[in-house]
């Protein structure tokens, strides 16, 4: 249990001292996960909403595939991205491997099915009369999509939260394609693994706590906009 206590005090110390090493790790984490999430959301939300609203033969299969994407092992995605961007891979000439760019690519791929899948579920849960109503009012496909996403906003928001949670806490893929290079591609999770491996459980815990604090604050801010909806069951 000591590890928790010492981890906690170490975490607080690290944070208030603005240790540049720690600050760099935090900022790389936020930057990589933030951009990746943005990419995943920009593609995933419209696509998920579209799938939620449309029927076509084989939809069942597409849905199962999308949900399977949620269980796509991040390490496999990491490996995949690694091979793509490796020197001998098709995109080797970009020299993105062991940079934050490759990490962003991997994390976008990881979070995308989560965002799209949960958005789809949320949209499917919206009252079916909305669709008829929107059509009757003369909305275009795009306007229907947007209005439905707005109605399902809590679910869509949670899809983004889930995507964020998955990538900010992910370690295998970023380790593989980022290389955990100190000062460049080291993020909170890879730092946790590094410290754990070296037996520094206290420091590992403190990085974990920092990570959780960040996630909590981000969630809290995101949910704030949904406060009314959240407690609106009156």
């Amino acid at each position, binding site marked *: 249990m000591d590890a928790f206590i010492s981890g906690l005090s170490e975490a607080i110390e690290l944070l208030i001292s603005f240790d540049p090493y720690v600050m760099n790790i935090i900022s790389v984490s936020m930057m990589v996960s933030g951009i990746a999430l943005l990419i995943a959301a920009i593609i995933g939300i419209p696509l998920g909403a579209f799938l939620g609203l449309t029927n076509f033969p084989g939809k069942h299969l597409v849905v199962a595939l999308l949900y399977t994407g949620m269980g796509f092992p991040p390490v496999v995605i990491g490996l995949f991205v690694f091979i793509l961007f490796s020197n001998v*891979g098709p995109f080797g000439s970009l020299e993105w491997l062991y940079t934050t760019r490759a990490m962003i690519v991997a994390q976008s791929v990881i979070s995308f099915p989560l965002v799209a899948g949960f958005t789809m579920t949320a949209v499917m849960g919206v009252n079916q009369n909305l669709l008829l109503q929107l059509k009757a009012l003369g909305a275009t496909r795009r306007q229907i999509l947007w209005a439905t996403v707005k109605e399902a906003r809590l679910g869509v928001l949670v899809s983004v939260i889930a995507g964020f949670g998955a990538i900010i806490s992910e370690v295998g893929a970023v380790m593989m394609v980022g290389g955990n290079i100190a000062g460049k591609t080291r993020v909170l999770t890879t730092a946790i693994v590094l410290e754990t491996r070296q037996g520094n459980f206290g420091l590992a815990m403190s990085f974990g706590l920092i990570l959780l604090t960040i996630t909590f604050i981000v969630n809290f801010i995101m949910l704030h906009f949904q406060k009314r909806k959240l407690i609106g069951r009156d």
Partner: protein
Amino acid sequence: SEDETSVLTMATTTSTEDSGLLDELLPIFGDETGYEVDVITVGTGQALEIGRSGDADILLVHAKELEKEFVNDGYGTERFPVMYNDFVILGPTEDPAKVSEANDLDEAMSLIYQIGKEGDSTFSSRGDKSGTHVKETTLWEEFQLDIEGKEWYDSLGQGMGDTLIAANEMRAYSISDRGTFLSMEDSIENLQIVFEDDDMLTNPYGIIPVNPDTHENVNYEAANELVEFFVRDDIQQKISEFGIEEYGQPLFFPNTD
């Protein structure tokens, strides 16, 4: 921002990185030459694979046979010996197999084998085809002990640090490089060295620049400078002193192979 040629990517194994040696030496190299070294820490096999695909400029690993093959296949220019440390056999503090009383390595390994067979202890192997694992496998073979499929033989498939943590928890026997053991000694209180100092237990580290003829993108110039840096007398001196302050003994020895 930064010039591409000023960055050197080195792939190495966890045991090297975790010892902290690189953190001490690489900044000196950086100050002297202006090169920045990106260290990628992976398994031995993965390090060699990264070298084969040209994703690293230089490798620092400890699997002599594999390294030679790497050079022979044209992926590396040459293997330069840098340093060595040694392996130690670890066991639980109560040492149920009485390995610490063994007279030679053969007897030590046999005692571990015996206690495992009796079901009174286990052995934690890295099981990841790393330098350490390859060495351990050679030893069982050398003394004609067949560990294939044995219930007491746990093949972990993990890095050195993780393997030691597991052995510590399971009160198992294991083999480790001295550096990793010393650096983790404080957090693995159930483990102690039960056998050491045998010629067969040396662990040589080599450094290999990736062949620019195979991968033209590699930073061969910088790689060569790093090789020269590592074999330089003052740096070899630093290697031999590294760890004394903290552990009372050196973790690595300068090497002329």
